């Protein structure tokens, strides 16, 4: 991976300080005859330069929590705080500034591209409103592609279909980095990649945390990936946080029955061979 130029150091909060927090956040959706609670009184805190993984089964509320943190979805109750400021109901220029600081990478990078444009065109277009000169923009693209281990020649003149799945996801991370974010939210960002590409994408996130002090919220149903990457783990079940703590504590010494069951269900490369018929 190439050695990236540093981003504006003044923009990075001190390591370990709270950056983003959800406090008693609840989200209810109306359905015929009442409502369902997708996220129920959840409080989590994200610390600068740390990776926090949110794990749980499908439907546990992980992505709903992420969408509320991204301010793509209003909360039903509770507050979202960013660098000590309540951002739960901010609008207009304040919200746009928040969106610059808190960027996201989603599961399917192909769906995020316009297949008719080159990668370079899309990266430039995303920064169109920033009023940068062409040279500055090219330099920024080169820097951000460098963060994810790509050279401009690898990507800018290519169309999305000419990139591998791993390269596409790395370009999406580079696109997010162009906004100089403080928080990167990766929602199942590696689940469509095979084991080798997945490892390379996780290494990119690890590199960004270590070298840029980026705070990462990593949403996954793969506990192995959380174990590899995360400093802290939050386990969600039916909208509730059932366990949270350091990765070592949650994965190697789980207290909650649901966490234990989730860990027991993880397919084991060698252990499972002992029992051809599942328990």
């Amino acid at each position, binding site marked *: 991976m190439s050695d990236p130029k540093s981003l504006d150091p003044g923009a990075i909060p001190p390591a370990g300080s709270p950056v983003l927090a959800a406090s008693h956040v609840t989200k209810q959706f109306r359905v015929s005859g009442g409502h369902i609670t997708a996220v129920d009184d959840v409080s989590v805190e994200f610390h600068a330069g740390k990776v926090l993984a949110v794990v749980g089964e499908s439907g546990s509320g992980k992505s709903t929590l992420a969408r509320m943190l991204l301010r793509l979805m209003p909360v039903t109750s509770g507050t979202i705080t960013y660098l000590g400021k309540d951002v739960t109901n901010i609008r207009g220029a304040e919200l746009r500034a928040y969106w610059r600081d808190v960027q996201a990478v989603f599961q399917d990078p192909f769906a995020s591209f316009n297949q008719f444009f080159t990668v370079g065109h899309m990266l430039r277009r995303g920064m169109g409103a920033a009023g940068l000169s062409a040279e500055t923009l090219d330099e920024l693209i080169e820097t951000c592609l460098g963060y994810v281990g790509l050279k401009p020649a690898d990507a800018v003149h290519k169309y999305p279909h000419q990139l591998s799945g791993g390269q596409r996801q790395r370009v999406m991370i580079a696109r997010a980095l162009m906004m100089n974010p403080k928080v990167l939210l990766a929602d199942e960002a590696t689940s469509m990649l095979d084991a080798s*590409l997945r490892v390379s994408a996780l290494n990119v996130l690890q590199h960004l945390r270590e070298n840029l002090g980026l705070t990462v919220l990593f949403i996954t149903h793969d506990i192995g990936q959380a174990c590899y990457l995360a400093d802290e783990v939050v386990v969600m079940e039916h909208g509730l946080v059932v366990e949270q703590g350091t990765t070592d504590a949650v994965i190697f010494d789980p207290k909650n029955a649901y966490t234990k069951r989730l860990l027991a269900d*993880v397919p084991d*490369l*060698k252990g499972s*061979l002992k029992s051809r018929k599942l328990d």
Partner: protein
Amino acid sequence: MSGILMRASNVTAVYAADTGKDVPAVDNVTLEVPDGQIVGLAGESGCGKSTLGNALAMIANPPLYVVAGKLEISDTEIDLSTLAKGANEVHRGHRGATASLLPQGAMNAISPTLRIRDLVVDVMRAHKRDTTKAEALDRATDRLKMLEMPTRVLDSYSHQLSGGMKQRMVTVISTLLNPQLLIADEPTSALDVSSQKALIEMLLAMVEAKIMRGVIFITHDLPVLSMVTDRLAIMYAGKIVEDGPTEELVNNARHPYTSALLSSVLDPTEETRTKHVLGIPGSPPNLGNPPSGCRFHPRCKFAMPACKLEEPAFLHEGEHEVACWWAMEHLNETVPMEVNQA
């Protein structure tokens, strides 16, 4: 074919490219499925797993063409190369009944405006036009009862079901005709661990109940494969490079590519917390212009001059087969796992 349910011999499948040069995504592959067993097919994205699955299911829509290959299932012999000559009607009778394909993302193909029972009727009538609604539903109900699944699911719309239940339902529906062979392409990839386990349990129950006599399970998820399969075949750049009993292959990988894939697996273990996995260096080759000799040699840490010059033949060590020059020089030796770690 004693004890062998299916043998696919010398299958070659190509994609017709705009350049006029065909891209062979599956190149002269031979694969067997023993009777009553589940065979896993693993490899990186783009290695030809799904293309091989489509060819074996006798589904080849342009630009994919199967240009060579023979499929033997039980006592039936099918010439796959006629798929490329517009003989699709010949294969129609075999699809779903002899070999059934559960394609990638099948659960998302359920119509949102129809109930599951309507899909059951549609699928049954697509293969047997005179099937009555009652016959189709009786069959589906009996099958769900046999698998101890709730029959009320038949009255549901797809949005009322969880991802795991949708995937189990499409699996049940794709086997209603009791195919000899089920080819399941990435059936667990979009599921969380609990749903994965439920699907795997159901597949094992189906094989035990002899609903089908064999399964080819395609995925890049090696822990899932090690949990469900009896044998594993590893594909790289359109070719099978290693094949053997699952336990033997996982514990005694003989091909550096298999070893690298195994090293990329992230288990929730203390070892994973401390190791730094590099992934496999480089990218899979352009199949339109693959490297000479062993196709993995440009990415292989154990490559030697012979690897570049000549394609290795299969070396047979009991039930374990490997096509690798390193393995030929290091008989019965496991490839060191740290090949992939920092």
